[in-house]
């Protein structure tokens, strides 16, 4: 199998090629396919697509004798556990690297940064069964991985790297999950750190894998993906019995999952004239075993396919098995003509008119800082929409008007030539009572800055813009606004409706924005105007 063929097909599995080197290629996989976190998983899928090995892979799990006894005290802390024993695994550097990489990806993905799922790998040969999963107090001591003397759980949480990183997951508890063997030796302290005793090295032959977590399904899904990879890596899987008091469970369960698909649905969605036999063949290339059952297809999914939630996912796998590059584009039979939204057509005309009048269009973000609104003396804080826990102060509030952002633009351009005439047409946001919590409107804002900028000039441009773009006239009535010089502000009225403001920016606002020329400005509610 040449490298060229492999590289050519990989993207059709949904893998992005990021880097191609002599000995390796770096690919990016979607988090919905955690089985692609190792070469084994990718090879499995590629074998199917290339027709070398089709249908669901077979996994053999021998019934093992290892038991995990679960103490009820874990129920309120980290309730679920599953495990598998892997025998005769050859841990060369590459295999070890793959497994650790998969463990990390599962921790961050399904595991939600170890909260939902945490995985421990142990050298099974030093473990004395049965294994006990229970809790211990903060003073409990053991030798953690990487150390040579015993320290307490409290110290681990405070002083070790993993402890500090993940201690938040346990901050509400005063008893901590602990996995021990029958001699009281510690295998691990999930989800934080393993014990040094069961360290895995190149010479490890028999492995015990523990998966603990807060959701049983997530634990079982992760265990299934791990087990499949271990078998593909050459190990022999042995099941483990988990005893939750009287309830007994055997893990891993790698039995395939059955799901039905309506063939007509697949044909319609794909636009392909597939027979049941075609569909079965395509699924086989996606490593899914299927058989026709009247007008349905009954499929058996390998246990690691946790991404298949609905019939549509099977349809996608048919398409992948068919070959996404083999699907021919066809001209749709319906003739639909699209056209521009009426409101947007008017807005586009307004933009063109202002540009023709000599204004430069600018674009600002919808999220602004509270400081910006303070500097521009913007009122009405009750109707503002703020971000909960903003990441930066630059993006705290959805802007209720355009002018503050325009003043900021002028502020950033004081070294550019004057006159400066800028405009923006964009959405602004206000809190509403009913029926929707947020009311969005398109506003036009424009600002004029130069030595002689004044109210009359702004009014004249406003009149030209309204008549040129919309064929309408407006009236202005004196109205003060904290942003404008007292006596130099006005309300804009069209057809007796208040639709905006116009005025000369006050010196104190100019000062907040470090502006050294007079500025006249206007803001119009276009959504209101166009209704």
């Amino acid at each position, binding site marked *: 199998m040449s490298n060229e063929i492999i590289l050519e097909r990989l993207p059709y599995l949904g893998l992005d090629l990021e880097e191609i080197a002599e000995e390796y290629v770096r690919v990016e996989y979607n988090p919905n396919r955690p089985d692609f976190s190792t070469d084994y998983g990718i090879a499995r899928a590629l074998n199917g697509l290339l027709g070398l090995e089709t249908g669901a892979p077979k996994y053999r799990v021998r019934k093992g004798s290892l038991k995990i006894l679960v103490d009820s005290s874990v129920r309120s802390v980290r309730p679920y556990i599953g495990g598998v024993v892997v025998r005769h695994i050859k841990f060369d550097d590459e295999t070890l690297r793959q497994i650790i990489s998969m463990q990390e990806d599962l921790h961050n993905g399904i595991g939600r940064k170890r909260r939902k799922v945490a995985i421990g790998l142990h050298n099974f040969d030093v473990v004395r069964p049965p294994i006990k999963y229970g809790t211990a107090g903060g003073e409990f001591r053991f030798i953690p991985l990487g150390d040579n003397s015993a320290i307490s759980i409290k110290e681990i949480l405070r002083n070790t790297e993993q402890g500090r990183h993940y201690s938040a997951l346990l901050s509400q508890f005063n008893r901590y999950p602990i996995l021990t063997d029958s001699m009281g030796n510690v295998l691990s302290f999930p989800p934080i750190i393993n014990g040094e005793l069961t360290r895995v090295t190149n010479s490890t032959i028999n492995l015990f894998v523990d998966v603990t977590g807060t959701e049983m399904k997530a634990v079982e899904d992760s265990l299934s993906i791990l087990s499949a990879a271990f078998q593909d890596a050459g190990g022999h899987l042995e099941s483990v019995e988990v005893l939750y008091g009287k309830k007994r469970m055997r893990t891993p369960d790698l039995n395939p999952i059955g799901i039905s698909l309506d063939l007509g649905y697949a044909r319609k969605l794909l636009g392909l004239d597939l027979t049941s036999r075609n569909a079965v063949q395509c699924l086989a290339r996606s490593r899914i075993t299927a058989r026709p059952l009247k007008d349905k297809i009954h499929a058996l999914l390998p246990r690691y396919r946790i991404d298949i939630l609905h019939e549509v996912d099977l349809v996608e796998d048919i398409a992948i098995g068919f070959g996404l590059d083999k699907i021919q584009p066809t001209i749709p039979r319906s003739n639909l003509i699209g056209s521009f939204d009426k409101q947007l057509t008017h807005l586009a005309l307004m933009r063109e008119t202002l540009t023709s009048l000599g204004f430069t269009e600018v674009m600002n973000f919808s999220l602004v800082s509270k400081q910006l609104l303070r500097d521009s003396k913007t009122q009405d804080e009750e109707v503002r929409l703020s971000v909960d826990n903003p990441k930066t102060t630059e993006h705290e509030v959805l802007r209720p008007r355009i002018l503050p952002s325009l003043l900021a*633009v002028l502020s950033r351009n004081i070294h550019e030539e004057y006159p400066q005439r800028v405009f923006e047409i964009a959405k602004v946001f206000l809190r509403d009572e009913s029926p929707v919590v947020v009311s969005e409107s398109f506003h036009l804002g424009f600002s004029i800055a130069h030595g002689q900028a004044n109210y009359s000039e702004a009014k004249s441009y406003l009149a030209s813009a309204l008549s040129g773009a919309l064929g309408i006239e407006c009236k202005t009535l004196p109205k003060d606004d904290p942003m404008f010089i007292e006596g130099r502000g006005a309300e804009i009225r069209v057809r007796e409706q208040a639709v905006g403001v116009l005025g000369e920016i006050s010196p104190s606002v100019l000062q907040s924005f470090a502006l050294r020329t007079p500025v006249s400005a206007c803001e119009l509610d276009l959504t209101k105007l166009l209704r």
Partner: protein
Amino acid sequence: MGIFRPEVTLPLGIKNPVLAWGGGLERLVMLRYGIDDLRKLYENDLGWLRRIPLRP
């Protein structure tokens, strides 16, 4: 690009398949104008805005 999952469209009362595709225009603009920093398009630098040609 793709087809919306039924779990997304059904709650909105849509029973037919919904196709969708889209892309950012910024990258095309960057290629056309020879810009290598996306943020340049959002700086509102009047000097730059005044100089760039309408059709490069």
